[in-house]
């Protein structure tokens, strides 16, 4: 694996961009699962009491 300190500025900026995108996708996934869970629980409560 290459040493991150050896990266040129362009590659470092590209890597930061990729990491940021991955972070956004992971946070969005967590929020998505949370929302779906709440909706499903609410629906089940309203149906079954």
């Amino acid at each position, binding site marked *: 694996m*290459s040493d991150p300190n050896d*990266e040129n500025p*362009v*590659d470092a900026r*590209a*890597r930061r*961009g*990729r990491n*940021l*995108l991955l972070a956004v996708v992971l946070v969005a*996934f967590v929020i*998505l699962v949370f*929302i*779906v869970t709440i*909706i*499903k629980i609410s*629906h089940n409560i309203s149906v079954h009491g």
Partner: protein
Amino acid sequence: MSTLEALAAPAAAPATVGAARAGDYLALLKPRVMSLVVFTAVTGLICAGRPMDPWLAAVAILCIAVGAGGAGALNMAYDGDIDALMRRTRRRPVPSGRVQAADARALGVTLSLFAVTIMGLAINVLAAVLLAFTIIFYVAVYTLWLKRRTPQNIVIGGLAGALPPLVGWAAASGTAPLNAWILVAIIFVWTPPHFWALSLYTSEDYAAAGVPMMPLVKGVASTRRQILAYCLVLAPLGMAPAVTGLAGPIYAAVASLGGLALIVLAIRLMIGKGPAPAPASCPVSKTTLYTVDAGARPARDLFVLSLIYLFALFAALLVEKLAGVAPLVR
């Protein structure tokens, strides 16, 4: 260097993987194709006419979009070799070397699994199965099997692009009735004349990559005849929702006028002179699809009109459903 050698040469020296930007991974998802998939899926979802939690509706559309993106990434992973030979596609992330094919494959598999799993857990099993079938059909049947083997590639493979309204309908209702299949049939029959019109003036690209598009295998005259035949089927088929209780007067007007215009342009294409292919040395540009020589204008016009036609049909359906316009037949 000959023309073919020039086409076969890579667009640029392969970049290192470290240079891949976040936008390259987004480009793997084919956002323009995804937008059409989402549009037709939303139409199917709303036409189902079942009340649905808006958050769950958004999740269903997200799953369809992500599934389409995953399929697009897998397509680019497997087609990297021929994409490098075509002017229109050689700057994509895989052929340009910015993203490795294995990474594109991993992204495609991950997104596809995510989309189908969430669809099954959050929406319903039928929608998840249809979404999985759509992705597998696009990757296995179209990309890996048909695309390089037969001029009927986009005829059969077009089913994958036709299914999103059915997936949307199934997501909303858990059913797949006749009206949903009519929407599928419209896109299915629309696909060949749309792509053959495009391939009539971009056939050099397909020839360089060895993709057996219809004009290369059967010739320009045969392709133009087949385009007209498909348009003659598509025009009345496009009217079908107006007589099955799905659509109202706005849709009927759009479908009849649009269908008539398609047939007129298909006849003009058939009786006109053969399109002059774009020179292989012309610069790579999205405008290549729209800015063409005079000889290719009939094919270009039909290509553009077919896009407008499909968009107008589904937009009319959406407008009628959202505005509460009653269908012509109950």
